[in-house]
């Protein structure tokens, strides 16, 4: 005679919940990634990192198979944002730049942030040909390029705290 020994069914409130795994997963960065793919780079505000920043961005979006023109648009926009962080944001000395890149579907999201001087008048700064440093052969085209070559541009800045430039572009190829 075979007697099937059954464990009594556990009641929910009796269960020993081991949530360490879940908690660890939540602490792992991938759990907080909100996009298909994303990367954050932090680097010192050195002009030689301008080419690194645009090449990293170009490499990051190759999977979306952008046209040469789209690639050059993104590189220009990133170069402008990073250069601004270096020469305006950290005009007075060294600092760190955070660059965030993400893709969601066919859209690329970019953030370039510095923790430097900030912009006194963002609306004015975004006007074409506006520069606070004409004596240094600046043409005031940086924000205009970002605006022209990306689909969206958002500039959030506080004097004394820093500047965050957010841009996006949908790859249509």
């Amino acid at each position, binding site marked *: 005679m075979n007697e099937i020994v059954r464990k009594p069914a556990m009641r929910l409130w009796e269960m020993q919940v081991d949530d360490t795994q879940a908690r660890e997963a939540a602490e792992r960065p991938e759990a907080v990634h909100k996009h298909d793919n994303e990367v954050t780079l932090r680097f010192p505000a050195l*002009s*030689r990192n*301008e*080419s690194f920043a*645009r090449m990293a961005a170009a490499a990051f979006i190759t999977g979306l198979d952008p046209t*040469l*023109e789209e690639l*050059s648009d993104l*590189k*220009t926009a990133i*170069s*402008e944002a990073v*250069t601004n962080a*270096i*020469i305006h944001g950290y005009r007075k000395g060294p600092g760190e730049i955070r660059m965030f890149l993400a893709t969601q579907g066919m859209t690329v999201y970019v953030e370039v942030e510095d923790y430097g001087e900030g912009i006194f008048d963002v609306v004015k700064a975004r006007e074409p040909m506006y520069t606070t440093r004409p004596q*240094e*052969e*600046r*043409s*005031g*085209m*940086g924000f*205009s*390029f970002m605006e*022209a070559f990306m689909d969206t541009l958002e500039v959030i800045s506080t004097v004394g705290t820093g500047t965050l430039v957010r841009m996006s572009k949908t790859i249509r190829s």
Partner: protein
Amino acid sequence: MKERHPAQYTVKNRCLYIALLEDLDQHNVDRIRARLDALIDECGSNELVFDFSKVSFMDSSGIGMIMGRYRRLLSRNGIIRAVGVNPSVARIMKYSGLYQILRPEFAEAGMREN
């Protein structure tokens, strides 16, 4: 690590030929500007030719540098030209108005139309 200088300069009479070797961004523009201005003064140049054939990228820093040299040359009745401009650099030039003020002798024929 020693980075190579991003341009090569050749002087012929009073013409200064600048072969650009790297992307024209703030980093490289800073390194080119001083040496270029010293040469312009030294040779009394009244013609500058920028050869862009090895340049695949230029941003507003490059625009500023070329614009600045244009003004310098203008003040001594000189001229400034750009050759070997590729389509993406040409777009930046057009957008900034640089294309219109440079002598329209772009190396790649056919680009003048659009």
